[in-house]
């Protein structure tokens, strides 16, 4: 498994124009041009977030029952607090880490839901943020760090411990940053990083 999958190179295309450029084909109907019908309820939640944080949050996707927002590691704690207090999402369903070696970053994704607010029962809010990634990780000692959301959402406690040992993302402010799952003598790379390969593959 190579650690850096080749990035699509866009610039190195020699411009050899032998034939005259064809007139651009005119699309008869442009389906993309039509404004996409956003689900109203999800749009309402999203507008509140964007109104509060402006360009600090980036809209990832809006689809039925799902909203995705991205934010930087400096703002993630404030955004999470707003989501809990003003939008009434009260628990985290899962904490997932995704390794992106091509971008040199590790993404941590929180899936937030609500038990108390009945109108939010179908909704999942996806809050994602990214930490810098080191090619020679020393879990807990290097720059792969994020602020912990444990004081906002208590339910992320075990999830963040899992991401710490599986991807090496240290959560600043987590009260219990210990190993949870792997053997005590594990000394290899964090196993869910892309450069950790399964034997024989």
């Amino acid at each position, binding site marked *: 498994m190579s650690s850096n999958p080749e990035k699509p190179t866009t610039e190195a295309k020699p411009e050899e124009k032998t034939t005259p450029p064809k007139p651009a084909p005119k699309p008869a109907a442009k389906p993309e041009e039509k404004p996409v019908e956003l689900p109203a309820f999800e749009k309402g939640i999203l507008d509140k977030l964007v109104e509060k944080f402006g360009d600090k949050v980036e809209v990832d996707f809006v689809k039925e029952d799902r909203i995705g927002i991205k934010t930087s590691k400096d703002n993630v704690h404030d955004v999470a607090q707003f989501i809990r207090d003003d939008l009434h999402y009260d628990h985290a*369903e899962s904490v997932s880490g995704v390794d992106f070696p091509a971008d040199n970053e590790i993404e941590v994704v929180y899936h937030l839901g609500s038990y108390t607010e009945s109108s939010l029962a179908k909704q999942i809010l996806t809050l994602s943020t990214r930490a810098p990634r080191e090619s020679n990780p020393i879990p807990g000692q290097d720059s792969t760090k994020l602020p912990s959301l444990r004081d906002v959402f208590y339910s992320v406690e075990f999830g963040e411990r899992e991401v710490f040992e599986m991807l090496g993302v240290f959560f600043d402010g987590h009260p219990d940053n210990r190993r949870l799952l792997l053997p005590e003598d594990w000394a290899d790379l964090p196993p*869910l990083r892309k450069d950790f390969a399964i034997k024989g593959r």
Partner: protein
Amino acid sequence: MTDIMPPGLALKKVDERIMTLNVGPQHPGSGHMRIVVQIDGDYIVACDPDPGYVHRGEEKMAEYRNYITNVPHLERPVIHDSCNILYPYVLGAEEILGIEVPERAKYVRVICSELNRCIYTMYWLAIYGIFLGHSTMFMWPAGDRELLIDLMEKVSGARVTHAHFIPGGVRNDLPANFEDVCLRQVNYFEKRIKEYAAVFYDNPILISRTRDTGVLSRENAIRYGTTGSVLRASGVDYDLRVKAPYDVYDELDVHTNVMKEGDSYARSKVPWLDMIESCNIIRQALQKMPKSGSVRAKLKPNPKTKGPATVYKRVESGRGSLGCYIVSDGKPEPYRVKMSVPSFRNLLALPNLLIGEKLGNMPSVYWSLNYWPVEADR
């Protein structure tokens, strides 16, 4: 205590009264779910769950196989509930591959999912019985479970790991005459489990060991993000089959069982009530199911994805909400598969329930969390 300590060993000076105990592992072969408790006399003062080391590779392995070939191995964490643990993955893979599921397949899935919920819950109930030293409650569910296992064997050919749900529907259609056999078995099964109330749930010994032990308040159940029977036993009315229905659950009439107490007794009774509800759902689904039609969309062995996408799907299993987060980069293999499992989520409540309890109540509290040890470490 001497001053000379081995280097690297940070021994704390411990109160002489406190004793550390390793309870478990619960499974002799593999060593999962050990609970390190500290007791003061008879009372638990600290608790640290150690979910163990059994599979620990499902999510990684899923990155090496395509969306179809991931099916047989992603069900391994909970083999007794294999239809349900696959369910969110299959729903997510369908969205990524852009597959439409035939109507009949959705009903077959609901029936298999409910049968699996009962099979799992019977196994759990049997172990809960033997944890409390109630050997009748071990033998009755273990025997009655066979009725439903036979049904699933007729459907899928396998007794435990069915690999029956695939992206695009289910692997095989129901066998001939299945509706009649299923209805008969389920009716008998429901009559049979209702007898458990007399021998188990009304049993004064059971009540004295489970009432008011390990009480989880409604606020804490929400705060810890618990799910499934643990959440509903604490008075939160939340069942994904009702609140966020998938497949054909919105066409069926599903009742959510909620209890207010939040103690071990309530947590052990909600799954049993759910089994009776499952029988109702199966009967409704058998009645509403289209009598003929395809159960599987046409699929290539290595189907193409629609491009980069992320999907999060969740279903309600026997233990609670199962979620599956799939990241696709457009390749035939998923880029990342994350399973969010109820046992792992409910585990967070365990230390908070045990602290302050007597050590003797530990089995009844621990197993009432509907915890499936292998699931917590995918």
